[in-house]
Structures are given as structure tokens and as C-alpha cells.
């Protein structure tokens, strides 16, 4: 997660630009370009697309998500809590013989245990995803680019950030144009006219 925009303000003293933003025409071009950026040794960069491009993480050299471990933990936690609550209620808190069955009737606890396990796992998946992705993040320098609105329509972008060790205002822009980018621009890091933009859009 090296490249989270929230790290920007502290690290960005003295940077004029957030970085370079380049738009590509097709998913195929973007894929090739990502491979090239990865092979060129950049680390603080990102691809931005309107839909998940299949297999792009391979081209970008990203590691698989760690989310499954979170989900397993919260799922087992939910199930354990559910089973514990039911056992405690029926053995200790409110013991009552019902339909001639013993107090600890584990089969009858299975439905609620299962449901709470699923609830735990689903909450883990969604909230874990928000945490990994740092959502919500309403402010981001990329939103200052008027072109960038296309990212939720048909724009396929690569952004290389200024604090990447290999970054250079001119060379990086040229490098991206050389990969076949349709447009290349520098995104400003600060916008004096901008504050309190709740919508976060362009």
C-alpha cells in the first residue's frame, strides 16, 4: 500500500505536481503500458480504469489482496460468537427444557451460528475492503484534472506520482507518451481555489 494519496501532504513538501497522468485508448494498450511501467522500475504509480481490466494486477506487478485472511477471521469470529451466545443462553443464562431435548442441543444452534458466521465474514469483506482502499477518500489530486472525469466513463489512465524515486517531470511524461498515450498531462498538487469539495468530482 505504499502509494496512498493520504500520505501525500507530509511527503510532498516541495513537489509542484502530484504527478503525470496519461490516457490510453484501449485496454490492450493500457495493459502493455503497465507492463512497461512495471519493468521500468516505477513503484509509486497506479492504473485508473472505469472497469476492472482482467489480469491487470499481473501487468502492474501487484501482490494478491490480503483480504481473505480478514474475512476468514471475522467469519470464524461471528460463528464462534453465535455458537457461544446460544450455548450460554441455553445452558447458563436461561436453562429451559424444550421438547424433551437436552440443554446443550448443538444441532439446533447450527442455523444461527451459520448466519452469524456469514454476517461476520461479509462485514469483514466490505469493511476490510474499505480499509485497504482507504474509502471514503473524498479529496484526491487526480480529481483536479478536467480529463479525469472520463475515468468513470471510457478513460483508461496511468498516473505516476512525483515522489517515485525514478520520477522526473519531463522524462516520465515522455516515457508515457512513448508508450502510446493519447494525452499526457501534469496534475497540480494543490489547487488554491479548491476546498470543501464534498462531491470530489470535476
Amino acid at each position, binding site marked *: 500500500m505504499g502509494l496512498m494519496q493520504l500520505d501525500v501532504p507530509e511527503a510532498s513538501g516541495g513537489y509542484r505536481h502530484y504527478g503525470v497522468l496519461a490516457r490510453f485508448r484501449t485496454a490492450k494498450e*493500457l495493459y502493455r503500458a503497465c507492463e512497461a511501467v512495471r519493468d521500468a522500475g516505477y513503484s509509486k504509480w497506479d492504473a485508473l480504469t472505469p472497469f*476492472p481490466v482482467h489480469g491487470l494486477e499481473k501487468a502492474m506487478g501487484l501482490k494478491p489482496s490480503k483480504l481473505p485472511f480478514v474475512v476468514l477471521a471475522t467469519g470464524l469470529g461471528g460463528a464462534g460468537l453465535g455458537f457461544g451466545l446460544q450455548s450460554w443462553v441455553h445452558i447458563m443464562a436461561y436453562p429451559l427444557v424444550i421438547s424433551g431435548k437436552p440443554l446443550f442441543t448443538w444441532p439446533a444452534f447450527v442455523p444461527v451460528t451459520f*448466519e452469524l458466521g456469514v454476517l461476520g465474514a461479509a462485514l469483514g469483506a466490505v469493511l476490510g475492503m474499505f480499509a485497504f482502499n482507504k474509502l471514503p477518500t473524498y479529496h484526491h489530486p487526480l480529481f483536479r484534472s478536467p480529463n479525469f472525469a472520463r475515468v468513470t466513463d471510457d478513460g483508461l489512465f496511468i498516473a505516476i506520482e512525483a515522489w517515485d524515486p525514478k520520477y522526473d517531470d519531463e522524462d516520465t511524461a515522455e516515457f508515457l507518451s512513448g508508450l502510446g498515450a493519447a494525452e499526457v498531462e501534469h496534475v497540480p498538487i494543490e489547487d488554491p481555489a479548491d476546498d470543501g469539495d464534498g462531491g470530489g468530482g470535476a
Partner: protein
Amino acid sequence: MAQSQDNTHEPVAGRAPLIVGGYDFRSLTEAVAEPVERKTPIGWWLFFLPSLAMLGLFGVSIGWLFWEGTGIWGLNNPVNWGFAIVNFVFWVGIGHAGTLISAILFLFRQKWRTSINRAAEAMTIFAVMCALVFPGIHVGRVWVAYWMFPLPNQMDMWPNFRSPLIWDVFAVSIYGTVSLMFWYVGLIPDLATIRDRAKTRIRQIVYGVFALGWRGSHRNWLHYERAYLMLAGLATPLVLSVHSVVSMDFATAQLPGWHTTIFPPYFVAGAIFSGFAMVMTLMLICRVVFKMEDIITMRHLENMAKIMLLTGCMVGYAYGIEMFIAWYSGNPYEQFAFANRALGPYAWAYWIMVSCNVITPQLFWIKKMRNHIGWLFISSILINIGMWFERFVIVTSSLHRDFLPANWDYYQATFWDFASLIGSFGLFFTMFCLFARFLPLVATAEVKTVLPEADPHQGEELVRVVRGGGDGEAVPQAAPAGGGGA
């Protein structure tokens, strides 16, 4: 519409396109976003106002119920459970198609789901809302309905976790919660689309807040896709469990006609069946109203018809096996319950159920019927009627003939029973109209992935099949075109 390309014939070599009409990314965004952005059309009001009126009737019927008590319903001594439970099971069942489309078809890589999953998921949530109303209001003493939840209280009492009705509370409310999360996670990129297209500040802020600042970063997509996959993996057993738990309301009892082990999978199949019928009804209307015939294509309708045929046969199998085992068991109570179902006072309901649920979908064996819009619409309505009657038959026909003949009675629904049934449709359609007006009806980001140009390896040869040695002559083979089934 007439010149739409026919994509219902799957070629043996390659795959038929999932959406037609020559869309690219931009025109697709336009087509999906446009209904959300234009002025409210008159046609929308034509659907919305009647729905709102029906919702009003729901409010009145519930108010009267609270004031008078459950005596306003047609319940009597052996039939203590009437429309309230029938409607509950019916609505929970409707809700199952949404999760099936979004989760199970996702796991099976059925990419055609992308055109309909958003609407189906929304429908699921609204159906679960309708369902949850009934256990809330049918408990008799509504002011203590919160006793269904395990809340510490001054009486030191706890719910009985061995009761199927408590499992219902957990299963259905968790199902609603997880469906809502699943739906919302899917909506985030599309809300960002509407945000970025917004013309007014208010729209920008409202949609922007819910879009969470989504900017399509692939580092985000990576976690996002994994979360979506896992939600699908979780929702699949969840959806099976929910209707299984609902079936256990009946099947854990000792009542002939209720107590039978096939109930859990049989209820799940029936739920998917009725849910698909409801999705079919709604999609047939929406694709015309919103001019989306090229996105929700004939192929989507045909595939849904095939699933209705499959689940209809499963339901028919369960009816048959139930009858057979009732006879095979040699148990006179079982045998009476099922003979009475088919030939007794509620035979009319039983045969409505059989003809709507088992016979109606059989016409879908014929391709022409699967592609016939009028028949699809009629059959989807018939199937929903049939599935409502299935629950009615299970509830009333098993109850009205008690073990003691002195208790026998006939359940007759009252005006207020019907008012709550019709009213629940009002709630459902009101919510759906609001959804169709303010949120994108189709999962734009997902549909874009089925376009050929979304494939980063488009046109590349990944595998070459040869005969005889390493560099032998290539065998002509179909190109692996994208967008097919699993």
C-alpha cells in the same frame, strides 16, 4: 428494436455477443446514465402513483391490524397461520433470484448476468423488506416484537434459539443486510459515474458522498474484486440457508404435509423459480421503458427462461417425490394429507399451483416460446401466482385437517388479508420505481467488461493446437472469443 441483432443462437465455435447494438464504453455509459439524468417522464408517474396508492392501503391495513388485532384476518382454530406467513415466504422467495444472479451466476462465470444483476439485487432488497414486515406484524402483540432479538432485559429472559422462528429472524435480517452490502459495493463505481457526469452541485454532492471518492484505481479494484468474489461466495450458501431456514418453520414440525426432509432444497429451488419470474416481469417492462433492448437482450430473457424451466422441473420433482414418499411411507396420516391436498377442499389451490408451476414452464422446452415476449410475460405472472399458491397450499391444506376431525375447518381470507397482500406489492413497486428513477438500472462498470475491447488480450493467440511434433501444421480452430458462459 426490430433490427436488433439476434444473439440467442450460441454458435458452436466462438460465442454470441452478450449485448448488441454496437455499443462502446461511452455510449454504454450514456445509455445507462440517461434515465437517471433526464426529467421525470410521465410514464414513470403512471407506475409510481398506483404503487404509492397500494402502499397506502398497506399502511391502512397494518394500522387497522394494530388497532383491532389479528381477528381482522380469516384465521380460525386449526388454521392459525394464514396470509401473513404465506406472504412472508412468498416475498423471501422472490428475493432469492437477486442473489442467485449476482452471486451464483457470478461464480459460474455466467457473464450475461451483468445486464440484469443490478436490478435483480435491488429487487431482492425490496422483497426482503416486504417479507420482514410480516413477522413483525403477525406476532399479535406487536409492541413486544423486539423480543425476537437477543437483547439483555430486566426480566433476564432470552429468546429460544431452538425455535425455527428465531432462526428466521436471524436468517432473513442477515440476508437483507448482506444483500444490501453486496448491492452497495456493486453500486460504488456506478455512483462515481453519475457523480462525474453531474450537472448540478446537489447531484454532485449526493452521488459523490455515496461514491466514497471512488476513482477507479486498479490498486482499489484489486481489493474490490476480491471483496466482491468473497461476497458472492458467502451469499451463495447464505441464499441456500435462508430459504432452508424458512422451510424449517414447517419441516421441523410433526404435521403431515409439513414434516418432510426434502423441504430445504425444494424451498430453495422454488424461491429461485419465483424470483426469476419476478425479475422477468420487471425486466420485460424496464427494457422497453428505458429503451435497453440491446443491453437486456433476447439472450438474457432466453437464459432466464431456461433457468425457470430448470427450477420449475426441480419444483415438479419435489411435488412428485413428496407424493410418492407419502404413499410409500405407508403412514396413513401422510397418505391422507397428500390425498386431501390434491382432492380435498383446497384441491382448487393445489391444481392452480401445479398448472402454473409445473406445466407452464414446460413450454420453455421450445425455443420459440423462450423468445416470445408475450408468452414470457404471461408465464412470469402465472409462475408468480403459482408460487404464491404453493405456499398457500402448504400452509392451509396441512392445517385445516387437524388430527382431531372435530377441529376441522376451512380458512377463508378476509378483505384485510387481501389488503395486506396487495399492499405489500405496493411497497415493493414503490421502492422499485424509486430505484429505477434515481439509480443506474444496469451495472455499467460490469457490463463494460463483456465488451470485446475490454479484454486486454483481444485478438491474441494464447494457445495453438498442432498435430505431429513441435512445429507441425496448425489445426484450424475457433478463436476463443470472449464473453461466453462457464
